[in-house]
């Protein structure tokens, strides 16, 4: 058995993979936050709660209706997205003319509400969700044991992120979206239904959170509190990366996950705080964030 700095190489790669898994969630969630913020100027605090909602919908689908993982991977994001569209139409829409802070406060209230409802029904303990049969087990790579499901989470997240990047940067729909971010009045003058684009963007960003939630269900315990602790770390990720670039969000998310994984090996006590510490350092050296532009 080889070792690096006195740490068995297997443990090292194991934590690296765990870090990548966490990083995938950071990437998908911060990507959704960035897309929403770009067009709506709203920081969606409810993103964590909607991630939790995605996981719970997957769990409920299996528990009450017997719908399997693959179906729920499709249905849950759609339902979460629909819920998002509803809240955008009913609530968030009325705040666009006000200070951006109200959007944050509203979605904070939504978070408490959603979490509170699930807590009153399911309590705070986690519900187990079985790994789908197809992705059970693992492969021995020689230098490490690779659980297939974890590898799948990373691959699926990266594919989702790249697909989002492709749609936004390379398609006509994405062009409208980017133009709307720059100057929504002008885009509206060209005959684009901007309010509709805004609604759909919110729905899509939120659906990404739901997607991440379904991916997380078999690894993390499905619990009402799973989202709120995550979302604060994702906020730090967003501050570090800046919300200016989509690739930036993806790279920052994955990178920070890996750093967190390594910290767990070398200095476990700091693994909870390392992302925040990096945020402090970035704020000192480059206040606008690694990929951000100061407005």
């Amino acid at each position, binding site marked *: 058995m080889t070792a690096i700095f006195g740490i068995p190489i297997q443990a090292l790669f194991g934590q690296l993979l765990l870090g990548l898994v966490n990083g995938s969630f950071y990437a998908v969630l911060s990507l959704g936050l960035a897309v929403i913020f770009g067009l709506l100027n709203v920081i969606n605090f409810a993103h964590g709660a909607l991630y939790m909602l995605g996981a719970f919908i997957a769990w409920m689908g299996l528990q009450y209706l017997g719908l399997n993982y693959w179906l729920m991977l499709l249905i849950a994001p759609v339902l979460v997205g629909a819920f998002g569209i509803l809240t955008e139409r009913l609530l968030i829409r009325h*705040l666009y003319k006000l200070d951006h802070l109200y959007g944050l406060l509203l979605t904070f209230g939504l978070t408490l509400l959603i979490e509170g409802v699930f807590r009153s029904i399911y309590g705070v303990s986690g519900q187990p969700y079985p790994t789908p049969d197809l992705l059970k087990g693992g492969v021995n790579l020689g230098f490490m044991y690779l659980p297939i499901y974890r590898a799948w989470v990373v691959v699926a997240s990266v594919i989702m992120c790249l697909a989002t990047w492709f749609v936004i940067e390379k398609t006509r729909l994405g062009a409208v979206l980017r133009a709307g971010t720059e100057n929504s009045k002008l885009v509206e003058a060209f005959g684009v239904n901007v309010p509709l684009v805004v609604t759909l963007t919110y729905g899509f960003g939120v659906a990404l959170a739901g997607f991440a939630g379904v991916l997380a269900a078999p690894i993390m315990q499905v619990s009402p509190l799973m989202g709120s602790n995550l979302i604060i770390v994702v906020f730090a990720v967003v501050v570090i990366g800046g919300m200016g670039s989509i690739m930036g969000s993806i790279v920052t998310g994955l990178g920070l996950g890996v750093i967190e994984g390594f910290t767990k090996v070398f200095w476990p006590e700091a693994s909870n705080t390392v992302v*925040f510490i990096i*945020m402090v350092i970035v704020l000192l050296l480059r206040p606008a964030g690694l990929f951000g532009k100061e407005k």
Partner: protein
Amino acid sequence: MNRQLISYILVAIVLALLPAIGAYPIFVMKVMCYALFACAFNLLLGYTGLLSFGHAAFLGGAAYATGHCLAVWGMPTIVGLLFGTGVAALMGLVMGALAIRRSGIYFAMITLAMAQMVFFFFLQAPFTHGEDGLQGIPRGNLFGLDLSNDLNLYYVVMAIFVAGYAICWRTVNSPFGQVLKAIRENEPRAISLGYNVDNFKLLVFVLSAALAGLAGATKALVFVSATLSDATWQMSGMVILMTLIGGMGTFTGPVLGAFIVVMLENKVGEFGRFLANATGVQWFQVLGESVTIVIGLIFIVCVMAFRRGIVGELVQWRKTRGA
């Protein structure tokens, strides 16, 4: 101005008489601690336009500092209170210096993230005793008063609250406070008028943190304990709600808001049982266990329809009626 002074004196007299007419002193002290906390927070949100999402760090940090100072080091009470306030001010200096490097929505996210870092530190540091928290903090004596007597402590807490309120009042109604309002209304203009906006922001952040710390230190004395829940992001959300519901940028608003939120926390369970009995819908029973649902709903209603808060709406109503 004179009428205002008279009404303040009247309120102070009523406050002083409350225990005599049967109010539970611990409850009123709790309200006063949270009211001071909310007033301190309002200096930032209401008068400078900065949304700090991490004020729980100061409340919780000062509570731990005071508790440690009194229980472990065995210092006199006054030293404990000052030490807690000082620690919170120092934390405010560090957090503020970092957070003011970004503005608007980022400011809120940075303060939230830093407060979460502080929370994890408290969770792991040995001196906080983790989930158990500090228990049995000795209240000691202050100027010969035995504070283990609730009534004695009541008047000390009242004095602290009045002093903290007066500091907020003085700050806002000073040239310094005028500059803060200028920053809130139009920051680029304040800069172009030659004010070093960053210094003003940092100073008010430290002041707000110190007063929030004073509230936390006092709270540790009242409950003879310091626990993790004071430092959670939910607590940061609570103080935002108190300020929002009472009316940000008003003096009495945060005090009223603190009273309403503390009442809610204590009474939602009873209200739920009452609804369950009255309507026969058993679900209302769980209302008490999930205060968060009610808090969340109030948050949404406040943001959607009630942004001036109770006091703000009253002021506006009087203005339109007078016009």
